[in-house]
């Protein structure tokens, strides 16, 4: 069966360090992979999208990689800040508009 796994339920890091979150998938061939941020009591908010033929995408302090051989995406936040504390969800899309989410990783950045 299809599985999307985000390696850590929770990740704690010190302010200024780089946070690295992992999204692994099995029995899936996603054409697109997206990362969303979710704050407590709110809906997910889109951050970045990467296509299957792209290796890396950047946006300000965010970087996403996509390795279709390893079936893995890495999400990096450089120079992390306490305001980056949130739950980060990866989402895979194989067919049009049919997007499936991982369970999320709760990131806490300590000052």
């Amino acid at each position, binding site marked *: 069966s299809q599985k999307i796994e985000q390696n850590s339920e929770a990740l704690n890091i010190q302010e200024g360090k780089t946070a690295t979150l992992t999204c692994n998938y099995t029995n899936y061939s996603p*054409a*697109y992979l997206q990362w969303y941020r979710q704050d407590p009591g709110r*809906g*997910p908010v*889109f951050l970045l999208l990467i296509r299957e033929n792209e290796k890396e995408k950047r946006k300000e302090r965010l970087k996403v990689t996509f390795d279709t051989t390893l079936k893995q995406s890495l999400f990096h936040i450089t120079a992390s800040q306490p305001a980056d504390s949130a*739950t980060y969800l990866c989402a895979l899309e194989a067919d*049009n508009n049919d997007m*499936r989410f991982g369970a*999320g990783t709760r990131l806490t950045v300590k000052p």
Partner: protein
Amino acid sequence: DTAVSQTPKYLVTQMGNDKSIKCEQNLGHDTMYWYKQDSKKFLKIMFSYNNKELIINETVPNRFSPKSPDKAHLNLHINSLELGDSAVYFCASSHRGAGETQYFGPGTRLLVL
């Protein structure tokens, strides 16, 4: 301006009742979704509508019935509520097509007692 709005924000009800959650988007999108997020925070797709037509219908009890009166609205009606229905329900919308960003509403927190 609110992009995707849901009402009510909180819903507390007794087992066996019937309730509805409303969703509206003003983004001009033609695809709308309902997701359920359980206590473990896992976000699971329930339904997807495109131009008022059902295109995704996951294995959801038929007590759940979505209704799309027009492209900008997708309501969720739940019959005979059960304890296990307690969760946060999110509405989302996007343009049609692969690789489109989904915009989520603020969620409706449903508690069935």
